């Protein structure tokens, strides 16, 4: 009896567990991409084009950002592919620079709101005491005020410099990031490994960045994509109202506003010119819409991949 027992003696080494294949990061990304749906590909291509336009704006744009030509409100020509605006600046150039400015500001603002909201949300979740109460109630108060109106008010009090714009929208937007971070972190904070880290004597910084953050990253990244879009739209809206990006900096929201009047004149122009005047405000608006849709496609795909909501 004893010999047979020894033969069959189990060993921890041989216990079965599903060990993943050791794949390089490149391989894993390749597998992920090979499964990406068409919409995700569309989103990725559009976003990369925008990124290229933003980064290489000075090289791509035919003229300088604020370079003024003799003829204002010119229609399409070989010299100005998309014509000139009301004071004679090249529209194509303004669109390319607009990508850089609008997207850049939106990216900076979103990053700031995630630093503030994410940081405070993590602290609140770990503390769960009076710090949590103070943060949460304060955030509730901020969220009770309609954010666009609040932003307009603050921009009127301070000035609408680019830094001011980033700070104000960043702080206002951090409220939503705070709520998300806090609620997803609460699920992680109760895990035994967080308690184990606490028992080890680890400080708050370690618990925040090493124990919790890696586990809440997927929803945060998805939220980053969505918040980016909302910030982007807010900035465009503020610029449209004249309180956002100030001239001569090129910006899509301002371009829509400056050209909005042309829509009303469209019926009075003959056919080919009518098209041109209709497109004048629609081009920057289309740029905004296209980016919004593209980022949403990517976020949808990402959420689908990380949430486990997969088709069988």
């Amino acid at each position, binding site marked *: 009896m004893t010999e047979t027992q020894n*033969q*069959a003696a189990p060993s*921890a080494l041989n216990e079965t*567990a*599903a060990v993943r294949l050791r794949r390089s990061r490149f391989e894993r990304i390749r597998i992920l991409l090979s499964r990406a749906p068409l919409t995700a590909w569309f989103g990725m291509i559009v976003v990369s084009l925008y990124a290229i336009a933003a980064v290489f704006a000075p090289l791509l744009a035919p003229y300088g950002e604020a370079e003024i030509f003799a003829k204002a409100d010119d229609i399409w020509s070989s010299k100005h592919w998309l014509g000139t605006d009301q004071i004679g600046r090249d529209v194509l150039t303004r669109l390319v620079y607009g990508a850089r400015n609008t997207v850049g500001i939106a990216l900076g603002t979103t990053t700031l709101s995630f630093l503030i909201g994410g940081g405070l949300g993590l602290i609140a979740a770990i503390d769960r005491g009076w710090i949590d109460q103070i943060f949460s109630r304060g955030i509730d108060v901020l969220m009770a005020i309609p954010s666009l109106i609040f932003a307009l008010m603050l921009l009127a009090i301070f000035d609408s410099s680019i830094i001011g714009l980033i700070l104000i929208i960043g702080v206002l937007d951090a409220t939503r990031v705070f709520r998300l971070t806090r609620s997803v972190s609460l699920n992680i904070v109760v895990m035994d490994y967080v308690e184990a880290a606490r*028992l*080890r*004597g680890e400080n708050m910084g370690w618990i925040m960045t090493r124990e919790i953050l890696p586990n809440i990253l997927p929803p945060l990244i998805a939220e980053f994509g969505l918040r980016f879009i909302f910030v982007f739209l807010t900035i465009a809206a503020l610029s449209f109202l004249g309180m956002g990006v100030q001239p001569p900096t090129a910006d899509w929201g301002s371009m829509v506003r400056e050209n909005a009047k042309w829509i009303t004149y469209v019926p009075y122009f003959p056919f080919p010119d009518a098209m041109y005047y209709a497109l004048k405000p629609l081009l920057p608006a289309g740029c905004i819409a296209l980016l919004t849709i593209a980022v949403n496609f990517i976020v949808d795909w990402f959420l689908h991949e990380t949430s486990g909501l997969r088709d*069988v």
Partner: protein
Amino acid sequence: MSEAPNQSSLLLDMKNISIEGFSDERWHPIINNVDLTLHRGEVLGLIGESGAGKSTLGKAAMGYTQPGCRFTGGDVLFDGLELSRMNVRDLRSIWGTRISYVAQSAAASFNPAHRLLDQTIRASKRLGERSEQVLKNDAIDLFRRLNLPEPETIGNRYPHQVSGGQLQRVMTAMAMSPRPDLIIFDEPTTALDVTTQVEVLSSIRDLVAQFNTAAIYITHDLAVVAQMADRIKVLRFGEEVEQAETRTMLSAPEEDYTKSLWSVRSLEKPEQAGDDVLLSIANIDAAYGSSKVLHDVSINLPRGRTVAVVGESGSGKSTTARVITGLLPQLSGSVTFEGEQLPPKLRDRSKDQLRRIQMIYQMADTAMNPRQTVGDIIGRPLEFYLGLRGRDQERRVIELLEMIELDASFYDRLPDELSGGQKQRICIARALAAKPDIIICDEVTSALDQIVQEGILNLLQRLQDEFGIAYLFITHDIATVRAISDEIVVMWQGKVVEQGMKNEILSPPHPDYSELLLSSVPEMDPDWLDTLLAQRAAEGSKTIKAQD
């Protein structure tokens, strides 16, 4: 099967079942060519380690595979119907009515927003054969037969208003309500305390016998299956190891693997008294908010010895551990470590005090950060307490891995690439890395299969012999206590009921509570449950109370 029941009573006939699961971009076999037959009124026990495919096979008997799994071969013939290739709509007319399923976690299987009675009769109502009132009366009758308290009114409660054991019995009533031909029990008592388990087991067994229902009983607890099943089938790695009638299987298993399963429960260590008290807690009172959970608890832990703290859930075992570690500062009383009082609050304790008391948790899954590799997990205390970095740290991690009978190949694995036993070993290594004097083990083996439990217990014993670590071993499992402890503390409702050396506590006479607890631990004897119930009925005074 010496009696050879006639062919007409054959209810379920599964032939050459093969099932694959999809993970990591590939299809892996989960079940390989397993046959299973079941006659009306027969109870088949399916046992095996986790990952052996017993749940998958159990569900396959319903013609169901989990998302991400598929049938790759074989037939499931249920009363003349071929289930494995049937479409879902037709299957639904069978599920819940002709075949029902009792899940491990009743709490997770009930809809918290509906009353128990309505949920109990849902499937039968769908059949439309009997009126709602008839069904309700029938359900109340089932509640009564299952020994539920207040059978007339308990159905009006919501799931959160009854205890876990009661909920498990309501779920059995729900499965029984349409009078199915087959019930699949998937570890129905694993999450219950031993004292509750006895009641649930006996009521399930009676009911199955009364209605001549066939059942597949899936469990990893051999002692439980010995009480329930007529026939036992052992699975391993998705293949059948052997099957036989329960008594034959228990007395004369043929395969080595089965024998090794059977021998696990015999583990026992001689007790040793220890006089050098390392940690002592005295007159501890503690509370969560305004509800007091510990009353005047005093425990001594000698150096290099194991003190087991036993009791049901809610008895204050884990709270005691939280007081010792400083997570829950006590209201009064003291925690003394090596003659020095420990500050009640965690943040007031020094790094060295923290280092010397380590903790291992019940659920190794949640005790390890899923985003950290084994190397990070074990390496962190080395860096944090001992300042080991780089090559030194890596070398020490590998040493520790070898100490827990794993090897360097585990260094860059993530927790979800480990089996349950391996995970718990990594947690032990993490505690060991700090070179502690005391390790608090909170139900460290109760989530594991028995064969894996044995390995973990042996490992802990070896580490104690080698390094003289003292264990405070919290458990509700008496077999584990027998295997590892020197001293025993019995807790009940936040108080220490009994305390002393192992043999003294485990041998009669016991206080009433200890008696109830000790006698409820299933044994590997198919007559154990009958004997126990007869005994309790005879004594009368110790009727089982179905209350928490």
